[in-house]
């Protein structure tokens, strides 16, 4: 399969890339790792007159701790996340996620920024970033602006990025002590999109009660779903089996999945419940709660 014709641009700087996007407006698409966009172009489910490859722009691939945040460059590859010692030690929810995105060959090119900006509700990073309370940094002609992840996903394949903006960084607030998170995905085989998946990130206070809860679902609706009622329920609770069961029920109530080859609506909602319970249980253990 061969994509419809386009002009290819390989800007050497962010300013040049933003200039190209402004110049071509809706006729341009940003190429990051290309592991979602190129298949869409090949299948001709998408087409573009101009492809702006941000792969030659220096300084967009990094994982660093700075100013109370974990900062991930927009073009950081999933394989870098998978191998990072900081991620393994301090952000196991992100390590969980990187390990189940597509397959190792795809992860050698796929990028974290691309996974978010593509805004496929079946992508895995959106739920983990919602659970972590991340922020996204967008660079445009007027400089940079910070978008809370809760305002980033505006619809299926749609984000708050404006035409001419590029996602350059993801910022995750460093979790306080006694925090833990997990991402649990049900897939038919390696490389498949999630039938259902759940992300949970908890902080447990010195009194043994939940001080912060982030819960989100993949493949559970037209956008990634933040399970707000489940989060609110857990606040101030001891995260025991009964509380986790109730929170998981509330999370699955927030899901509005659609039926497809991977399962019926009822099955997917039930899996959202089961996977949320598993993610919460693992998050509690990692937070040192049990």
């Amino acid at each position, binding site marked *: 399969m061969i994509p419809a014709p386009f002009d290819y641009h390989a800007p050497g700087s962010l300013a040049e890339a933003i200039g190209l996007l402004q110049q071509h407006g809706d006729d341009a698409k940003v190429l990051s790792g*290309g592991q979602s966009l190129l298949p869409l172009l090949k299948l001709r489910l998408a087409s573009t007159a101009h492809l702006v490859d941000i792969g030659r722009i220096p300084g967009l691939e990094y994982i660093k701790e700075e100013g109370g945040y974990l900062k991930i460059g927009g073009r950081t590859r999933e394989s870098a996340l998978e191998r990072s010692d900081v991620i393994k030690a301090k952000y196991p929810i992100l390590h969980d996620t990187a390990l189940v995105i597509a397959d*190792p060959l795809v992860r050698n*090119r796929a990028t974290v920024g691309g996974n978010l900006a593509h805004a496929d509700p079946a992508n895995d990073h959106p739920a983990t970033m919602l659970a972590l309370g991340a922020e996204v940094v967008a660079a445009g002609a007027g400089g940079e602006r910070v978008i809370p992840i809760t305002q980033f996903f505006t619809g299926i394949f749609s984000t708050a990025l404006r035409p001419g903006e590029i996602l350059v960084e993801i910022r995750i607030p460093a979790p306080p002590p006694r925090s833990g998170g997990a991402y649990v995905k049900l897939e038919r085989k390696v490389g498949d999109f999630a039938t259902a998946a759940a992300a949970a990130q908890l902080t447990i206070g010195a009194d043994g009660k939940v001080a912060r809860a982030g819960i989100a679902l993949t493949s559970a609706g037209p956008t990634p779903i933040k399970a707000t009622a489940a989060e609110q329920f857990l606040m101030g609770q001891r995260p025991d089996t009964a509380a986790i069961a109730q929170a998981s029920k509330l999370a699955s109530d927030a899901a509005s999945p659609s039926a497809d080859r991977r399962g019926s609506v009822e099955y997917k909602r039930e899996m959202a419940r089961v996977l949320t319970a598993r993610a919460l249980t693992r998050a509690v253990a990692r937070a040192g709660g049990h």
Partner: protein
Amino acid sequence: MSKHNIRVTINGVPHEAQVDARLLLVHFLRDQLQMTGTHIGCDTTHCGACTVVVDLEPVKSCTMLAVQADGAAIITVEGLERDGKLHPLQEGFCQEHGLQCGFCTPGMLMTAYGLLSQTDRPSEAEIRHAISGNLCRCTGYVNIVKSIQYAAALPR
């Protein structure tokens, strides 16, 4: 459609070529350079038959533009054998019956090549993880894993 002059090194040999913007790396290798060792299987980023090593990392060449490879060092299955002597991985696939129809083999070999260049003696679990993006419809993978273990035990 824009055209681009690219320079790539393939199996140690420098190449310069003009490519259409939309030309995929796998088509550049197979159609423009007549290097047909790299296979096209699913063409939808699932099967891994088109795997080549780009700048030391195995990637699916059906999901990369040739122009994106400008400046890169690429290794394909044709680059494994040296002076008529099979690479230890190829030797392993022969000795351990790591292929039946052989269609997935170039991709399996290149993924394994990428693995062995980063991990000297991978465990069975590491091998199975590494090849999880390469589909084989014949072998059930057991002999492929053995083949890679065979190569990992040889001096390279």
